[in-house]
């Protein structure tokens, strides 16, 4: 089973969109996870629920909400239109849809990792002369990196396979917005099952590698915590 030039360009487009989406949500997700781990209260619960919504809503529902927000008459769309930025049905829409859908998958493990840090270590860092930002960088991040990396891989895997939200706001334009998940669907629709299977094979390999790495990392973290 060899990949065609078409398969390759679809793979590349998918990897690129997923990578950009993951890189975009990484700083925001880490900061969100840090603040969720540090602060308690109803505000936190509300924010957490909102951030987790993409996990539980049908992806097409999220896609429709994004579509509504981004259409030219919509609140965000008007601003973007004035700035001359076009998102809907471009590769940027693929990035946006996958970013929104993968965000909670990054935040949850990262938040757990931050919560597992003994707060006294953070207090110790402060007492030794480091300000809050410095303690975050020198104590919290190094102690939580496994959880953050695990979450990043999960989010990346999710981004690779995103379908529902993407098709709502980016469509399935070959060579422009058609990712692997979309191409698999489209190929089966027109009876090219063998061509679809080739892409399925690729996704299995990538997903396997990502989940395997996550498992290994989290297991090592659990062992370390037990020791």
């Amino acid at each position, binding site marked *: 089973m060899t990949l065609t030039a078409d398969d390759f360009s679809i793979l590349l487009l998918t990897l690129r969109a997923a990578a950009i989406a993951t890189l975009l949500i990484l700083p925001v997700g880490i900061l969100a996870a840090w603040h969720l781990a540090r602060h308690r209260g109803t505000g936190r619960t509300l924010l957490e629920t909102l951030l987790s919504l993409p996990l539980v809503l049908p992806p097409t529902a999220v896609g429709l909400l994004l579509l509504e927000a981004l259409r030219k008459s919509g609140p965000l769309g008007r601003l973007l239109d004035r700035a001359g930025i076009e998102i809907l049905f471009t590769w940027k829409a693929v990035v946006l849809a996958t970013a929104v859908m993968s965000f909670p998958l990054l935040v949850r493990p990262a938040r757990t990792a931050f919560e597992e840090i003994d707060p006294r*270590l953070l*207090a*110790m*860092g402060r007492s*030794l*002369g480091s300000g809050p930002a410095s303690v975050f960088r*020198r104590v919290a991040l190094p102690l939580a990196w496994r959880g953050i990396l695990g979450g990043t891989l999960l989010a990346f895997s999710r981004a690779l396979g995103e379908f529902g939200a993407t098709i709502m706001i980016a469509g399935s334009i070959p060579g422009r917005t058609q990712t692997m998940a979309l191409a698999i669907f489209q190929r089966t629709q027109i009876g090219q099952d063998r061509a679809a299977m080739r892409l399925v094979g690729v996704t299995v390999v990538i997903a396997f590698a990502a989940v395997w790495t996550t498992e290994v990392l989290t297991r090592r973290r659990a062992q370390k915590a037990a020791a």
Partner: protein
Amino acid sequence: MIELDVALPLPQFRLHVAATLTADTVAVLGPSGSGKTSLLEAIAGLRPKASGRITLGGEVVMDTAAGVFLPPERRRVGYVPQDSCLFPHLDIRGNVRFGMARGARARIFDEAVAILEIAPLLDRFPTTLSGGERQRVALARAIATEPRLLLLDEPLAAVDPLLKGKILPYLLRVRDTLEIPFLYVTHNAGEARAVAREALVLREGAVMFAGAPDEALRSMSLVDPEARFDNILSGLLGKASGIRETGTLVVGEALFAVPAEETARPGAGAVFSVAPEDVLVSTRPLEGISARNVHPGKVISCEASGGTAWIRITAAQLEWTARLTRPAAEELGLAPGREVWIAVKTHAFRRLR
């Protein structure tokens, strides 16, 4: 000088400590749960709910009435918590260097490492260290930040009968060579007396006593049932006697027979501990006794606590604590002013460290 007027609500009671501490070394005593650790954390700035006023060497670090609350990183206070709290992701070198300012003198690192004898540990990670080693690393880490005040919280668990991992000898060195003032939380009233020049006794969040450590010691058996009263002798090792197994320790003008050590060099400083259980008291001159250390003395005070009588005695120009059973003390008719003799076996002297 440390001026404290701190209030802090705790689950069991409200901590309120008002005291002016003038000595450079202060022991903080009191039973478990009396608020000692909370007090240290409030001084370090780690208790956001603390209110009142704290000044360290004239600088106000907290004055909630005036809206002043310096964050911990700006208080320049070196805190050594009970459980050491070393950073698990850093090796010992990284831990000690953590709080050093960028332009810090390189000497302070070497000094801290030398005084606490942690050079062999520098490349190891905290999880591989013993409790005593961790405590020393935590103290070195605090010293390396060049603090104006050290806060040291000694865990009760570290008061092990084998005296392994005792921080006390290192603390004496810090006191005598670096001249950093410190507050030292301990359950060992004997140690407190050896280390500190002032004592603060807490009970249920309030100051029960503030003043000379010798006086604080008198009532400690009643205040803190877990308190220990080790007799700490800090002196110079004398020339080894003809017999190899005993050496001598010179404290002031008094001479004591102590177990000889292969590493001991005459003239070197040494700290020994004698448990109060190991001090025998006699009302008659002792003769024909195997104990090598027999000294006449005088009873200063007697306190009974449960079945135990704590007898304070001056002998050989030192103050001793002897622990007797209550019937034994009563039969001997011990009372302040009474002339007695104390006897301590050579092997009851245990070298710290």
